[in-house]
């Protein structure tokens, strides 16, 4: 396993774990750290043994946002040349399921990272927020787009304009998160969820993610055509034969991801 400076990455029983590791800074995201997260995600995406990836933060917070010191003096031309958000684009290409286990502060870039996960499990007491407006800027790594696609324009504008601290109750109500669990059990529950997904047929999991993501971007008709192709494709897999035979033979299937 490659050594990282700002994160820790490990894997066990088909589940990979990425932990943001700047707890003294509430896991504020600097550019190297974002690159490391994406590098680790891509490595796990290629690793045949990994079937699900959990992303969390060490310490009290998931991530309190971007490293402000790093960008206080930035200039638009430098930002264009730096093209830092290309790393965030790579994040959208990860094919395996990503489960975010969030707690404490999930602010700014940290919130954008959370919104880039496929499922979110939150410790009770977690607060989500886009406070960029209070610094005279706005989200730049997909915050306005992803939030709006999930909760709709009305709530997105209210929260983005005010930098509102969103509670887990509100986040659950608006479909931002899947579950709220006791803080003490966050990792146990997140790993349980990941293992549950890891037991399913990997190619189904993969093409379901692919198709659901298209539902967000495509018009309905194109989305349905896309879904159909993925549905047909799965009939080329060994796991489809195994799954359907096991059903007919009344036994448990053994999926291999092929």
């Amino acid at each position, binding site marked *: 396993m490659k050594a990282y400076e700002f994160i820790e990455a490990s894997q066990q029983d088909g589940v990979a774990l990425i932990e943001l590791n700047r707890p003294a800074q509430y896991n504020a995201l600097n550019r190297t750290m974002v690159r490391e997260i994406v590098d680790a995600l891509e490595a796990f995406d290629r690793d045949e043994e990994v079937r699900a990836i959990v992303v969390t933060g060490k310490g009290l917070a998931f991530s309190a946002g971007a490293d402000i010191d790093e960008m206080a003096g930035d200039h638009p031309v430098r930002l264009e040349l730096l093209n830092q958000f290309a790393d965030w684009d790579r994040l959208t290409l990860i094919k395996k399921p990503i489960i975010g286990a969030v707690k404490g502060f999930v602010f700014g870039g940290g919130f954008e990272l959370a919104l880039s996960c496929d499922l979110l499990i939150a410790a009770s007491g977690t607060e989500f927020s886009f406070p960029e407006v209070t610094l005279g800027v706005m989200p730049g790594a997909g915050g306005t787009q992803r939030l709006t696609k999930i909760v709709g324009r009305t709530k997105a504008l209210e929260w983005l304009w005010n930098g509102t601290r969103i509670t887990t109750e509100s986040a659950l109500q608006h479909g931002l998160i899947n579950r709220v*669990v*006791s803080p*003490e*059990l966050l990792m*146990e*529950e997140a790993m349980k969820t990941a293992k549950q997904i890891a037991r399913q047929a990997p190619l189904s999991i993969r093409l379901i993610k692919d198709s659901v993501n298209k539902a967000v971007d495509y018009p309905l008709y194109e989305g349905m055509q896309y879904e159909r192709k993925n549905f047909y494709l799965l009939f080329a897999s060994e796991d489809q034969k195994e799954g359907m035979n096991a059903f007919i033979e009344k036994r448990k299937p053994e999926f291999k991801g092929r």
Partner: protein
Amino acid sequence: MYETIFYSVENGVARITLNRPNTLNAFVAQMNMEITKAIKAASSSEEVRCIVITGEGRGFCSGQDLSEVDENMDHGQVLREKYGPMIKQIYQCEKPIIAAVNGIAAGAGFSLALACDFRLLSDRASFINAFIHIGLIPDSGNSYFLTRLVGEAKALEISILGEKIPADQAHVLGLATKVVSSDNWDAEVNQFAERIAALPTKAVGLIKRTIKATAEQSFTDYLEEEAQGQRIAGLTKDHREGVQAFMEKRKPNFIGK
């Protein structure tokens, strides 16, 4: 560090004493903030296993200091910025909190006592939901807690009639854990607090959490909360100690972890 309260920790018990005795410990904005800060400190201190809130002098707390109120005051904003955060800090605290009501608890002072887990009342103590007498409504969580404690009908009577409730009557209504003779007040309060501080603190916090879940969640969600709570309690050292002490037929020695 604190000007309107005393804060001390001894034998696992954090004591917050409201200290504006000339006003029967009336709230000013600074006192709201200092109580919030003290509860926060006690919540995060490993040493603290029980919190006692009491009043210096004759009274427990007489509610908002009316000399701070003028016609420009936005009452809603004061609640959002001062009383709300204080009551929320108490409500969210997972350590047991005892209101040691030494004298009158009026208005928001009554609300403060209601927000606590236990209410020990001196025989000199009394409650009064005084808001109605100045044309206001009970605030600082008052109706939320009061209705759960005494039911809607009694909550309405207490809030609309605004009559003084002496300690013995408070006990009958279910508003007091216990009424204590003023002669033994300090000793009995300390004894009770130390008894609570010797309990398995994590389990006490989880009991608070699950009982709150009954008010906030559906039955199915409550059952999940309960399962998670028991999982957490099952991992504590105090659980192991409790089981072991039972097998060995001795008294358990809980450390709060």
